């Protein structure tokens, strides 16, 4: 008895009542996003369109003092029918190759007048990776104070899904009916070579991450770039309700890594932190999309290898090795 008493804590017994409050975590997160919508109901985008979803959060983060510069892409045709538009923000629709060049001039004009208006290019992968790349490179090099957002659905989907420089290996498009034979162009490496003040990737499936990055980018003066994965239901051939699911699979498989690079310092964000260590098989992502129906075992192995190399390279950069 004496021995037992000695292990009891000194002083009066204290009781703690722990109340578990069941409150969904996601709800707390989404509270930071303003309720105001800048895309009025509705655009003429397809059901389940990731471009509309991304633009919803880009505009929410940007706010009213913003001009969108949109080259030829899905977003230039989904705005509605003249003389009305679903976009409750000034939009400047410009030629395919010119978005970043237009934004350069526009940004300079605003700054010359002492205005801090956000100039945002919102362009597809064709208008960025292929056709608009010289204008983008020029604007980054000139140090234009703007934000360039490339929403990447990995093909020219507006005109019926033709192959683009962003189409991944093995994906069927109308111009690669047997599956693409080449790899996706590494746009992020091209942009990183320009040393922009802020560079990030995001995905339509993670609106909070996307919102945070756009909000942060717009507080920094100078050229900013964001590359956002946009899983496209008709183009990638999956049912419209799977848009968000497909984006999550891409991130969990490590095919798409969420990160931001601020003044050269890389930070892995959101769901990719877990994916850097443990990933789902890439087959889980490839097999649920009709566009990868003809992918060969060699191509799948090639994609796996690319994913592992990319993850290892990013990990080395995070660790400060390269």
């Amino acid at each position, binding site marked *: 008895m004496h021995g037992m008493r000695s292990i009891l804590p000194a002083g009066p017994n204290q009781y703690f009542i722990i109340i578990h409050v069941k409150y969904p975590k996601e709800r707390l997160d989404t509270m930071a996003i303003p309720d105001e919508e800048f895309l009025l109901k509705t655009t003429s985008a397809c059901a389940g*369109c990731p471009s509309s979803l991304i633009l919803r959060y880009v505009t929410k983060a940007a706010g009213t003092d913003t001009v969108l510069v949109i080259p030829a892409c899905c977003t230039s045709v989904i705005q509605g029918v003249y003389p009305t538009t679903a976009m409750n923000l000034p939009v400047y629709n410009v030629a395919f190759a010119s978005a970043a060049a237009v934004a350069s001039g526009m940004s300079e004009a605003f700054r010359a007048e002492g205005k801090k208006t956000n100039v945002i290019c919102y362009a597809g992968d064709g208008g960025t990776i292929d056709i608009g790349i010289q204008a983008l490179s020029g604007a980054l090099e000139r140090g234009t104070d703007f934000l360039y957002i490339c929403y990447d659905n990995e093909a020219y989907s507006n005109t019926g899904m033709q192959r683009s420089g962003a189409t991944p290996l093995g994906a069927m498009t109308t111009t690669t009916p047997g599956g693409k034979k080449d790899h996706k162009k590494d746009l992020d490496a091209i942009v990183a070579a320009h040393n922009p003040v802020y560079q990030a990737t995001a995905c339509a499936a993670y609106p909070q991450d996307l919102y945070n990055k756009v909000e942060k980018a717009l507080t920094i003066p100078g050229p900013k770039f964001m590359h956002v994965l946009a899983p496209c239901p008709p183009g990638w051939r999956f049912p419209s309700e799977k848009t968000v699911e497909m984006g999550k699979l891409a991130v969990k498989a490590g095919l798409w890594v969420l990160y931001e690079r601020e003044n050269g310092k890389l930070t892995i964000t959101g769901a990719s932190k877990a994916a850097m260590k443990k990933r789902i098989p890439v087959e889980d992502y490839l097999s649920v999309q009709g566009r990868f129906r003809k992918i060969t075992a060699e191509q799948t192995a090639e994609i796996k290898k690319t994913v592992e190399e990319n993850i290892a390279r990013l990990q080395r950069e995070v660790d400060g090795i390269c």
Partner: protein
Amino acid sequence: MSAKLAISRPAEGAAGKSGTWRTFRPVIDEEKCNKCGLCRLYCPDAAISVDLEIDLDYCKGCGICAEECPKKAIAMVREED
């Protein structure tokens, strides 16, 4: 000399009543719903209000809300006509 610019003005329904596109209609089961708001977060067309009411005039019926609902409180029901 004045130049006339082709400017579109913002308006609801600029692309028509997109609710007519639907094959399946989302129906919320209020018993199961815990008001987490993920359906509203993921709706590409902002057809779900702050009070989590679906605007059937404009909902295109993509089904993302039903797919992403953690409580499986939204059912996609085939449109009658």
